[in-house]
C-alpha cells in the first residue's frame, strides 16, 4: 500500500450544544481517491474545514506528511502541501480565470514586496512563470479559451473546474474536493471524473466529498461514511455499498442499486 499522506484521527467538534463530529477519522494515501459520503448534515464539510485549518477541532489529531498539523493555520497547511476546493464556490470573482489560478501560485512566487513595487526583474519573472503555469493548468481542466474572461462571467461547471485548477496550482500532495460534481450535468461530471483520476495518477492523495454515488464508486479506493457526526462505515466501495446500515441511513434501495451499477 502506498504512503499515508493525510490522516485525521478521533476528530471531534461541537457548535454550542451540538456535537457536529465525534471520533471521526480517515487515512488518505498517495495516488488514491478516498471518498467521504453521508447524508446532508453528517459533518462532511465540517471535517474538511477542520483538516484544512479553517476550524479548530476540540479533540483529535491531524497529521500531514508525517507532521502534526492539528493547530496549523490554513496558509501553513497550504505550504505543507494541502489544498482544497469549496462546496459553495470560493472563486475570486473579480479576477480573470487565469488570475485565479495565478493566485494559486502564490507560494511558488519568488518575489519580494520591493521587487513588486519597483517591478524589478524578479517580479516580472514571477508574473511570467505564474502565467505559464496557470495556462497549462487551465488547459488541463479545459478552460484555456476562457483564460482572460472575468471569473464572474463563467458558467457554474467551469467555476468548479477553475477551483480545482487553482488548488492544483499550489502543487499539493493532498487535495480535498468538496462536491466537485455538485450541480454539474452528466458531461461535466464525466470531465471532472477523468480529471480526478488523472490527479490521483500523479501521486496526489485525493479526498472527495460527493453525493454522486456512481462517481464515488467508480473512482474511489476507500469510502468513509458519516452519519450525524459519527463514523458509520469505512471500507472499499463494494464493502460500503453492501453494508445494510449504510443502505438504511444514506443510500436507500435506489441509491444502492445505482451504486451497484457503477
Amino acid at each position: 500500500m502506498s504512503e499515508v499522506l493525510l490522516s485525521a484521527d478521533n476528530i471531534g467538534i461541537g457548535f454550542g450544544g451540538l456535537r457536529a463530529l465525534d471520533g471521526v477519522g480517515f487515512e488518505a494515501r498517495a495516488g488514491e481517491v478516498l471518498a467521504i459520503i453521508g447524508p446532508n448534515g453528517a459533518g462532511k464539510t465540517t471535517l474538511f474545514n477542520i483538516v484544512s485549518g479553517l476550524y479548530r477541532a476540540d479533540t483529535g489529531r491531524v497529521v500531514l506528511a508525517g507532521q502534526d498539523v492539528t493547530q496549523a493555520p490554513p496558509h501553513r497547511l497550504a505550504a505543507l502541501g494541502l489544498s482544497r476546493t469549496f462546496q459553495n464556490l470560493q472563486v475570486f470573482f473579480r479576477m480573470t480565470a487565469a488570475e485565479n489560478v495565478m493566485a494559486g501560485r502564490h507560494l511558488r512566487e519568488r518575489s519580494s514586496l520591493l521587487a513588486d513595487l519597483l517591478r524589478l526583474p524578479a517580479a516580472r519573472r514571477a508574473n511570467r512563470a505564474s502565467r505559464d503555469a496557470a495556462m497549462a493548468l487551465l488547459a488541463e481542466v479545459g478552460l484555456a479559451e476562457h483564460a482572460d474572461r472575468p471569473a464572474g462571467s463563467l458558467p457554474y461547471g467551469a467555476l468548479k473546474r477553475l477551483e480545482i485548477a487553482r488548488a492544483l496550482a499550489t502543487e499539493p500532495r493532498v487535495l480535498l474536493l468538496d462536491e466537485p460534481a455538485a450541480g454539474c450535468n452528466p458531461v461535466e461530471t464525466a470531465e471532472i471524473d477523468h480529471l480526478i483520476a488523472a490527479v490521483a495518477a500523479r501521486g496526489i492523495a485525493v479526498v472527495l466529498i460527493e453525493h454522486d454515488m456512481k462517481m464515488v464508486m467508480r473512482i474511489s479506493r476507500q469510502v468513509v461514511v458519516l452519519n450525524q457526526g459519527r463514523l458509520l462505515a469505512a471500507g472499499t466501495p463494494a464493502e460500503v455499498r453492501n453494508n445494510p446500515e449504510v443502505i438504511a441511513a444514506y443510500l436507500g434501495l435506489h441509491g444502492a442499486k445505482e451504486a451497484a451499477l457503477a
Partner: protein
Amino acid sequence: MNARWATLLILAAVIAVIPWFFPSGYYFRVAALVWVTALGAVGLQVLMGQAGQVSLGHAGFVGIGAYAMALGPKYLGLPVLACLPLGAVLAGLIAFLVGRPILRLKGHYLAVATLGFGILVALVLVSEIAITGGPDGIRIPRPEIFGWRPRGGEAWYWINGAALLIGVWLALNIQHSPSGRALAALHDSEVAARTIGIDVARHKLRAFVIAAVYGAVAGGLMAMMNGFVTPDAAGFLQSVEYVTMVVIGGLASVPGAVVGAAALVLLPQALTVFHEYEHAVLGLLIMLFMIFLRVGIVPGLATLLRRRPA
C-alpha cells in the same frame, strides 16, 4: 501590461499640458493641491480598492507626515526635506503597530477602529499645544533642494505632479504583481486566499503600511507647499474625503483615485457660484455619482466606451 503604460502616459501628458491653459498663477496652486491630494488617495486605493480593507483614519497618517515636517526641524534640528522620508517611515511604523491588532477586524468594525485611530491623531495634534501649536497649527520651514528653494504654486505643481506620477507607477506595479494578486485574492475571498497559502494578516498589514506611507508623503508635501499645517489635515472630515475620492473615482482603479481626488478638490472651487449652497450641491453630486456610476467614474466610463460600437 499596456494599460499600465497608457495610464502613466496619459497622466504625464495631462500634468505636462494643462499648465498651458492656466489663466493665472492661482491655478497652479489648485492643481498642485489636486496632485498631492491624489497621491494620498492612491495610497488609500491600494488598501481599500486592492485589498478591500476600509480605513476611515487615512488622514491620520497624512497628519503624521505633515507634522513631521514641522516638528523634525524644530525639535531635532533636521533639514525639512530629510523629514519627508522620516515622516514616511514613522507613519509606516505606526501603521505596522496599529494595524496588527485592528486589521483582524472586518467591515464595519474595521471602519470604526480606523476611525478611532484618525480621531486619536487629530486629538493629540489639537491638545498637545506646547509641542504641536494646537488648533492654530504650526509653521513649516521652507525646504531647500540643492540650493533651489521651491516657491509659489508653479514649483509645487511640478514637484507634486512628479511625486504623483511616481506614486501611480508604484501602485500600478503592485496591482499587477504577485503581491497585488494576493491582495485581490483576500479581497474576494479570505477563506480561499488562506487555503492557497496567502498569509492574510501579513498581506493586509502590508497594504495598511503602504497606504500610511503614501498618506505621510502626501501630507509632508502638502505641508511644505503651504508652509503651514493645522490639525484639520488629520481630521475626520479629511479621512472621509479620501474615502469618497477612492470610491467615486472607482475602487478598483488606481487612476480612479486621481480622478476622484481631482473631483473633490476642484468641485468646491467650481461650486463657489452656489455660495452658501455649495456643500449641499457637492453632496448631491456625490450622491448622483454613486447612483449612476456605482463602480466609479473611471471604470464606469471605461465600460461605457467599450460598449459603444467601434
